[in-house]
């Protein structure tokens, strides 16, 4: 059915947008490199393809006057998802243009900001492109050449968004969300063993907080009633596993 297709495409767009954001955050820092620029370019292109596909699908669904009210509400919700993704993508593209211009790679005195990030972003890009391994085949002047493409792509995206706003009459504020507060906790429970991640970051935090966090994990039994108010029972079960 149209809805399922839409949802999968939107999920894909969502994934690519998230990965693109991770890549843009690494721009200008010590994990910036030739490869990163190429990854950015390819992720961007993929995002645009997905965006166009999504748009055509959704506009055709919304233009159909013969759909039921519930269906229409559902499509409007998907539309809001789509336009929010696009907004995020547009902002990230503009920012990557700015930062890319400020931090060119092929200059004799290259001052990339020593942020502490030294690893590559290959895995993130691979996730975005849905491939196992990334192959890099770009020229050495990708950082300047790409910026021109980027500018034209940004204007394309802005144009597309303006068109969308004018053609599709969807009131974004009228959409009701299906997820309630704390929903992200439920969806993430399958991505279990994140407790290791929690404790290692504790060390970066000042002593009191560290003490507080450790105590809280041990004292989870006390906090169970509070947690169940926030999220569903499965979360509580997981807390016991951590202990």
């Amino acid at each position, binding site marked *: 059915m149209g809805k399922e297709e839409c949802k999968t495409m939107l999920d894909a767009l969502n994934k690519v947008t998230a990965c693109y954001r991770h890549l843009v955050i690494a721009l200008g820092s010590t994990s910036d490199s030739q490869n990163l620029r190429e990854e950015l370019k390819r992720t961007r292109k993929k995002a645009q393809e997905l965006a166009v596909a999504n748009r055509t699908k959704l506009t055709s669904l919304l233009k159909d006057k013969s759909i039921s009210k519930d269906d229409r509400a559902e499509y409007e919700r998907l539309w809001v998802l789509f336009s929010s993704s696009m907004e995020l993508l547009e902002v990230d593209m503009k920012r990557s243009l700015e930062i890319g211009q400020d931090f060119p790679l092929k200059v004799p005195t290259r001052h990339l*900001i020593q942020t502490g990030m030294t690893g590559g972003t290959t895995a993130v890009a691979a996730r975005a492109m849905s491939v196992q391994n990334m192959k890099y085949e770009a020229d050495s002047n990708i950082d300047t050449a790409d910026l021109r493409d980027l500018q034209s792509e940004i204007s394309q995206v802005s144009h597309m968004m303006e068109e969308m706003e004018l053609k599709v009459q969807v009131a974004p504020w009228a959409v009701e969300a299906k997820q309630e507060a704390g929903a992200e906790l439920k969806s993430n429970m399958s991505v279990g063993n994140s407790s290791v991640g929690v404790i290692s970051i504790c060390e970066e935090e000042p002593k009191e907080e560290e003490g507080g966090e450790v105590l809280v994990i041990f004292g989870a039994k006390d906090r169970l009633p509070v947690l169940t108010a926030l999220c569903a029972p499965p979360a509580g079960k997981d807390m016991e596993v951590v202990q």
Partner: protein
Amino acid sequence: MTIRTARPDRVEHFRPHMHCLKKLEALVVEMQDPKTGVKGSEQKLNVTTIPHVITGKDIVAWITNKMKTTAEEANVVGTMLVAYGYIYPLQNHKKLVMCNDSSLYRFQTPYFWPSQKWVADDSDYAIYLAKRNIRKKGLLEPYEQVHYNHLHKWLNHKWDFIVMQATEQYRAGRERKKPDRVVFDCQERAYWILNRPPRRTHSALDCGPDRLIDPNASEKESFDLYRRMNIFYQQAIMRSKVKSSVSLGALVKYVTTYKTHDPFLAPCLPSNPWQTDSDAYWTLNMRSVDLPTKMRVERWSFSLFELLTDLRGRDDFKIFLKKEFSGENLAFWEAAEELKWGTASSMKSKAETIFKTFLAPNAPRWINIDGRTMGLTVKGLEHPHRYVLDAAQTHVLLLMKKDTFFRYLKSPVYKDIQKKALNPEPHSFSPGIHPIILWKQEEEEKAKAAAASAPVDVKTRRSAAAENRPRHFIIKLKMRKI
């Protein structure tokens, strides 16, 4: 029509220029130079090592060297770098200052640098809070929880997107290596502490309300623009200009006259009520006090304006004028003020009484103003409005200022009150305990009382838990204190 088309670019919020940002960015980039920049070292956490960690004293030393200033100035510049978010502290992440010691800092990635163009969006913050919720398994800090609930309510239409995006970003983040993940979390946290400061902290990025007009955009050249520019410059030429020597002299005179009376610069006698909680100062300076303080009486001699605005002084002035049988000027001035500030309905009757009392040919309290002003005023009183007596009032005020005021200052009335005025002794309270410390002590006592009154059970497990409880409670308190 949707919101977006009404405001063409939702991203640019047209905030006022923050000119310092470009300069700070240049400074930060220079710090990265491998040869002449700041030397970084490595930070060892449990099993991971993260490079590019710099100590506060290295930064301050580098800035002192580079800008050729003193260490204090360099420290201030360093604090500015931290306060604006170019560098973030690793140890006390909520306190954005630069400490000139071995405390550790790291540079922030350019995406998270402050900028005039890119404002920290609410939906981004919601995504960050959702991610943090996942990471901390539902235990956000109280202020974060408040923001989360607020955003859940107001961004409800986007909430599905926020949840989806947060989970995706979280999963994408896990694709990176461990040290990078830690760094990324620190970076994001530092960014949001700056842009959504916790309660009772101040953010350096506070720049007032957003504008709807882009200050960066230049106005389109047109006939109207140049016409307006011409008018502006013509008026500017015609304005009378005061020489800076004259205006500065006036400023110096004002400062030297008033500096002993300023409660910020000179101690307030008997004591500043906001500091010592003793309201003796206010009771001594009330409206209808018999004997004013010496400072107050001295203040009356500064100008007629001071004398008239202080109602106690005005009373004294009236006593003097009564002795001189020239009270009509002041009475007229007061009546004119009443007319100016009074209600519209009472204006007609007030104007009539004023005319009868002060301005009519054989009035009981006839004021002596020049013929032209008198003529204008009388004519205006046929159709009275709020400012009809303005000209006459100004004239009368000038008379008082140039003549009566100086006679008052030399008069026995004033000299008498000067002698009789009170000079209160300054209070010398011993410095008390700071109220926050008192509150903390109270809370600790309450906690101890709660622990003491908790039931003591035979089962060891229960008693162990009861022992844990007060410690947990107190440490929770310490967390909240930050």
